């Protein structure tokens, strides 16, 4: 959003009578409607590493602050996504690496990469497919949410997630992760992190619109002399591999995915159910036949 939305002119009073209806239209440029697919396009070339997303997320969802030590990993003292941290800004210093000197390295985010990581809300979400209680489900906005009134803390979603996002909290014994502000979407509000992001590095919107916007942005960057820009998680791009089809929250990156702690070609965990079961049943069957043969042989 580069300028104020026309509807902002409809509320000139100092005291409003309540939430601005469909505020997402003012802050993200589009209304939120059930039945559509929503997600985040995170353009890391606009990210200034300010962590407003981390704070806005914790403020909105009342998540506890649980870190009191420096990590020593550049300006990232958060470390990773967890049950109490649903947004994590990664900092990767590249100066000095492979002889890079800050004044000679190509411009624009090549020297110090910053990226706000979040749950990917995968199209075929391994956590959703693994969840035995139906606590994790796909909402009317095509997002993936853990319902903490159902979850019994079995923890199967934790190893299932190919991006290491969801985690069971040791404070309330339930699994937690980003809900793409499910409650805010129901109220027509833009998710807290996307609304707070100062440079619109985190862009919220309807998925197809986001993907086209991201494609044009990548071509634009190539034209501006940043050939390394590529999409991660959009249909048919790295990260949207192995049966995941695509990630509702996808990224524009300028370095290998692993540099940002992302797998280059993750896969859908449920793909491995059938092969494992088939081999298992075959072996069990084989041994059952053998047992039957032995037992009959024994009698003779």
């Amino acid at each position, binding site marked *: *959003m580069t*300028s*104020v*939305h026309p509807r*902002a*002119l409809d*509320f000139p009073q*100092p*005291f*409003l*009578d*309540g*939430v*601005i209806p469909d*505020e997402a239209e*003012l*802050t993200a440029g589009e209304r939120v409607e059930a039945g559509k697919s929503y997600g985040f396009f995170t353009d890391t070339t606009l990210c200034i590493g*300010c*962590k*407003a997303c*981390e*704070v*806005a997320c914790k*403020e*909105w969802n009342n998540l506890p602050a649980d870190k009191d030590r420096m990590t020593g990993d550049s300006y990232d003292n958060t470390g990773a996504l967890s049950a109490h941290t649903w947004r994590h800004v990664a900092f990767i210093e590249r100066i000095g690496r492979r002889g890079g000197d800050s004044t000679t390295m190509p411009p624009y985010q090549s020297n110090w990469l910053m990226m706000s990581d979040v749950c990917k809300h995968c199209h075929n979400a391994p956590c*959703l*497919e693994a969840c035995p209680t*139906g*606590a*994790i*489900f*796909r*909402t*009317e906005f095509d997002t993936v*949410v853990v*319902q903490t*009134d*159902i979850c019994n803390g079995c923890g199967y979603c934790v190893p299932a997630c190919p991006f290491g996002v969801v985690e069971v909290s040791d404070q309330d014994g339930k699994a937690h992760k980003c809900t793409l*502000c*499910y*409650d*805010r979407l*129901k*109220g027509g*509000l*833009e998710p*807290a992190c996307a*609304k*707070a*992001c*100062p440079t*619109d590095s985190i862009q919220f919107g309807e998925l197809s619109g986001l993907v086209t916007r991201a494609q044009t942005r990548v071509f634009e960057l190539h034209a501006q002399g940043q050939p390394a820009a590529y999409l991660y998680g959009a249909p048919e791009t790295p990260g949207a591999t192995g049966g995941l089809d695509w990630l509702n929250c996808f990224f524009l990156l300028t370095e290998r995915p692993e540099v940002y702690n992302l797998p280059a070609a993750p896969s859908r965990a449920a793909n491995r159910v059938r092969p494992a079961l088939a081999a298992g049943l075959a072996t069990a069957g084989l041994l059952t036949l053998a047992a039957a043969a032995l037992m009959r042989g024994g009698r003779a």
Partner: protein
Amino acid sequence: MRRRGPVARSRNFFREWSIPRQLAGRDAMAEAARSRMSETLRPRLERADKVGSSICPYCAVGCAQLIYARNGRPIAVEGDPRSPINQGTLCPKGAATLDWMTSPRRLSRVLYRAPHSDRWEERPLDWAMDRIARLVKRTRDETFVERLPDGTVVNHTLGLGALGGATLDNEENYLIKKLFSGGLGAAWIENQARV
């Protein structure tokens, strides 16, 4: 966590049971799995009974904020989408304004430390104001200078000072300068403009 008895648990289980919905053809990944809480979920901003325009108290960019309050207590502080400066966005400090207003470290009583004492004592507000007024008067009377030795009129006191202003409102700054300089003649009046 309200403790729920077995009867309540089982009634809740059957109300939330997805298998019948699955058999009725609803998708096990979506509608069949949706719980009652998810159905009735609303953003807490809708429970606010007062929404006021405010300005972020941190840096000089001047981002506009909306403070949502309920029963006289703040429940959320967000960026004001109407502002041409921040259009609803906020930085990490501004986004944490709610937690500043409700920080556990906030004081709500006047603390007083007597000379040479080794601890704080709570004191009533009026008592403190009266005592401070008398101290100000005493210090001013002891150190006020009307003329310099060479006769130049100065009408000031170097014994009294006020420090701070950059984080305060214009109205507050105006009254501080008016009282301390215009009224009491204090020379040492400074603020963070020089920090």
